[in-house]
């Protein structure tokens, strides 16, 4: 965490530095480039301006000199002397007047251009005036100033006429241009000026210059090698450890052309200003960078420290600690984040509580669910271990609750469950725990001192069902079975305790008791039941089941007219499983529907084959009470009949009297549909239930099967059974039903039944149930007679 925080700070700092450095570098480069351009521009401008200033200064100096010279030559005495033609006098006058105006050389020029006299010891007498063009200009009255090298010095010459009043002669006056002159110009422009005489191939000394001695000598040496240059692109000359932008130009453009001026400006000086600017910008950038670094450090800490705290808090939440809140005083985004964080934390806490509640409570009744109940049981067991005493558990399962749901709707069922929850809560002590374990199963956990106390609590619990449950106009009585188990008597752990309460509850249900306490040793039975159920499913899909057939014989003809299909289970481990064991389990679990369909399919298929093969037989299949709630059953049977080609009248379904009576109207509906297909309906185990004859009449029944309990010991002299069987036969016949007796196991019974007018018989006396091939063989064998059965066929 710390490492990451630091790296975030570092990143931020690096980013900032990189940004600033790039920005600064870009600025400096831009400034530098702009500076260089500006320096070049400045240098060019300075040179150009400097040249212009020099030209202007020299021009105006020339004009000034010309004016001065004009005044001089207008002096009457001067003119007079000139007119006199006396050379010595003239020479002296020239010198005299020349000194007045600080001239360096004065010539008197005749009208034809030859020198008549000069102040240089008359060395030039009778030679043409040295600055010939200027003389020509003066004659035509044009500007009369020119610069020329003369006597190894730069001179500015003016030529003015001597008027008397027409020109009688000309006076040429030369003024030396020396270092001082140029220095004055330099004072205006800061440029260096050096005057040269332009003469090709000839090495000329520098005539005048603002440069100091050594630099002047250097320039004189190097000026020849100077490449052509212009003001826009001056040459660079390094002299005296300084860089000079250098340009050579004609001294006075358009005037006497033998003079050139070298203009030089120090690039270093021009650069200095920009160098200073660059340094200032660099300094400012560095300051900004440092300031930013400090700022970024503070900013990063201002972000990373709260982030660190938030991260720690997030870890706390991850570990399930919702108690601490995080306080960040800042009103910025981090503050908002912190408060959002706190909100999130409380939200998570609420939702987690909600989820935990949902995970531990039943959503319908709000009671604890199995998970929480087991927790509580564990707690109670732990407490009992420490403090002594017993922990009791009552398991309550509602009887026939599925029927309530199926017939009255789930809504009604839900209301009943909720009402039970409420009633339970009202009945038990505050320290007890009530839970809904699922479906119609409730459980109560309590502390008790001894088994009688537990029984008392169970009794109290059972009283909640005394009052009927009413919804609207409907009022329904609900019964339940209760099982009790106790720690430490029956189990040491919650799971076992619960399982044993469950077993006790099933015992109660099986024995039609309201309450049952677990008895040691019941466990194996219960486990076996559970394993049987799961194995049965495999058996149905596998090939462990088969159908055996037991013939039904007509009393009058002695011929088998039908066969009852009976399921047999050859368990791979336990061997043959008695149907009396697994069929009720299947009925409880609902697997009976699957079993019934399987048997139906086999029976119909077999019977259809028999009929095709000439065996004139019907087949009977047992339906369970649950099958009567299978609304799809009629269409399934119809499909089977159609697929196999069996006549519907050849199929007979047997339903126990109790199954029919449980819900006569519903059973009537399903049976009616089957009857409509032409299927024959038989009431099985007749006489064991308490059938309402009125109900019976309304059912589409074709046959009554007298329960074996009345038949097995039926004797001529037996009073009670005989009377029941006789009245049943009579009753059946009166209602137009066939009557069949099962459990016929002796000749005597056969005879009694025959005498009573019973229509059909079934039982070991005739034959045991047989697998299909044996049954077929039996049918094709010698016809059965009561007599042959007694001796030949044990059944």
């Amino acid at each position: 965490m710390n490492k990451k925080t630091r790296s975030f700070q570092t990143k931020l700092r690096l980013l900032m530095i990189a940004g600033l450095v790039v920005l600064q570098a870009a600025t400096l480069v831009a400034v530098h480039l702009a500076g260089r351009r500006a320096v070049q521009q400045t240098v060019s401008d300075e040179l150009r301006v400097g040249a212009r200033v020099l030209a202007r200064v020299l021009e105006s100096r020339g004009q000034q000199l010309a004016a001065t010279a004009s005044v001089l030559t207008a002096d009457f005495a001067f003119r007079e002397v000139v007119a006199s033609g006396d050379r010595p006098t003239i020479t002296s006058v020239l010198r005299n007047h020349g000194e007045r105006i600080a001239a360096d050389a004065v010539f008197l020029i005749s009208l034809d251009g030859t020198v008549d006299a000069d102040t240089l010891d008359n060395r030039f007498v009778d030679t043409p005036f040295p600055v010939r063009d200027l003389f020509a200009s003066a004659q035509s009255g044009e500007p009369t100033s020119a610069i020329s090298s003369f006597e190894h010095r730069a001179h500015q010459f003016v030529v003015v006429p001597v008027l008397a009043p027409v020109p009688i002669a000309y006076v040429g006056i030369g003024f030396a241009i020396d270092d001082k002159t140029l220095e004055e110009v330099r004072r205006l422009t800061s440029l260096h000026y050096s005057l040269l005489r332009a003469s090709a191939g000839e090495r000329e000394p520098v005539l005048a210059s603002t440069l100091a001695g050594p630099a002047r000598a250097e320039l004189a040496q190097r000026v020849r090698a100077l490449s052509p240059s212009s003001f826009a692109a001056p040459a660079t000359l390094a002299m005296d450890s300084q860089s000079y932008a250098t340009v050579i130009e004609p001294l006075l453009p358009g005037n006497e052309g033998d003079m050139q001026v070298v203009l030089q400006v120090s690039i270093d000086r021009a650069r200095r200003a920009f160098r200073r600017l660059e340094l200032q910008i660099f300094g400012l950038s560095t300051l900004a960078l440092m300031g930013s670094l400090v700022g970024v450090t503070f900013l990063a800490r201002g972000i990373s420290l709260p982030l660190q705290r938030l991260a720690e808090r997030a870890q706390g939440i991850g570990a399930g600690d919702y108690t601490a809140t995080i306080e960040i005083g800042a009103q910025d985004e981090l503050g908002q984040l912190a408060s959002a964080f706190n909100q999130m934390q409380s939200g998570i806490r609420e939702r987690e509580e909600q989820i935990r509640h949902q995970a531990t409570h039943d959503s319908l009744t709000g009671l604890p669910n199995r998970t929480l109940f087991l927790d509580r049981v564990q707690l109670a067991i732990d407490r009992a271990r420490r403090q002594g005493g017993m922990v009791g558990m009552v398991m309550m399962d509602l009887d026939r609750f599925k029927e309530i749901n199926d017939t009255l709707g789930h809504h009604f069922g839900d209301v009943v469950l909720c009402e039970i929850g409420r009633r339970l809560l009202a009945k038990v002590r505050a320290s007890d725990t009530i839970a809904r374990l699922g479906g119609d199963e409730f459980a109560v956990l309590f502390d008790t001192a001894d088994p009688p106390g537990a029984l008392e609590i169970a009794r109290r619990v059972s009283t909640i069902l005394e009052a009927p449950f009413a919804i609207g106009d409907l009022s329904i009585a609900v019964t339940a079975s209760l099982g009790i188990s106790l720690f430490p008597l029956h189990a040491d752990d919650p799971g076992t305790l619960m399982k044993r309460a469950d077993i006790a509850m099933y015992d109660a249900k099986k024995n039609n008791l309201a309450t049952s306490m677990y008895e040691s040793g019941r466990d194996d039975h219960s486990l076996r039941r559970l394993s049987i159920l799961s194995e049965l499913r495999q058996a149905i899909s596998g090939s462990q089941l088969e159908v055996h057939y037991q013939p039904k014989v007509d009393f009058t003809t002695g011929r088998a007219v039908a066969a009852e299909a009976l399921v047999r289970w050859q368990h791979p481990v336990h061997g043959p499983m008695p149907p009396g064991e697994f069929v009720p389990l299947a009925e409880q679990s609902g697997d009976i529907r699957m079993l019934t369909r399987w048997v139906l399919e086999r029976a119909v298929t077999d019977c259809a084959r028999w009929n095709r093969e000439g065996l004139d037989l019907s087949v009977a299949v047992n339906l369970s009470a649950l099958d009567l709630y299978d609304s799809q059953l009629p269409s399934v049977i119809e499909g089977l009949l159609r697929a196999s080609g069996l006549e519907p009248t050849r199929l007979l379904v047997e339903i126990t009297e109790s199954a029919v009576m449980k819900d006569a109207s519903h059973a009537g509906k399903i049976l009616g549909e089957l009857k409509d297909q032409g299927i024959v309906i038989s009431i099985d185990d007749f006489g064991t239930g308490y059938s309402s004859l009125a109900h019976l009449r309304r059912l589409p029944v074709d046959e009554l099967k007298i329960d074996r309990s009345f038949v097995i010991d039926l004797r001529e002299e037996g009073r009670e059974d005989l009377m029941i069987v006789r009245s049943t036969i009579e009753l059946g016949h009166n209602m137009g039903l066939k009557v069949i007796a099962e459990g016929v196991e002796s000749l005597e019974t056969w005879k009694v039944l025959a005498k009573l007018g019973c229509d059909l018989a079934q039982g070991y006396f005739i034959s045991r149930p047989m697998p299909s091939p044996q049954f077929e063989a039996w049918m094709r064998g010698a016809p059965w007679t009561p007599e042959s059965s007694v001796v030949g066929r044990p059944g």
Partner: protein
Amino acid sequence: MSKILFSLGFLASSLALAADLTVDVRAAGLKPLDQVVIYAIPQDGLPLPPPGRAIMDQRDRTFTPHILPIQTGTAVSFPNNDNIRHQVYSFSPPRRFQIPLYEGTPSQPIVFDKPGVLALGCNIHDRMSAYLVVVDTPYFGLAQDGQVQFRALPAGTYEVHVWHPGLRRTMAPQLVTLNPSDRHELLVPAGPR
């Protein structure tokens, strides 16, 4: 200085012993020239009339006339008709002189007894300028509309001279012989200033 040719025409004529001479002075393109001094110097040693007097007036800071031809030996007075003073001078070789600042007419005229051209100036007014053309003949004139007419010149041979301040080089004189009652016309090209 550009050179323009101009023609100088002499028209000589003579009546009995006298002849008339007409001289046309024309620039190139036959443009008549003014203010050109034409003078004819007799070559036959004839007696010449004595020189007379002439006046070089100063008005409105201007010499009048600008060009004044005179016979050698003529006395020229320099009356100052301005209400300011002038200081007339000439440094020209034939006669150097100066009249110190003066008003009115100087008491003594100046006699110019050498032929030649004198440039006149005023020392205090540089713009004032004039020429005295001193010639050894009484036969001279200033061209008007490019023409000078000499009437009743004695017959004989003459050297005809032309002068103008703009002429850089002195033109070679032309010889003209005038017979009595002759009417001579001369057309001479000339290069003025």
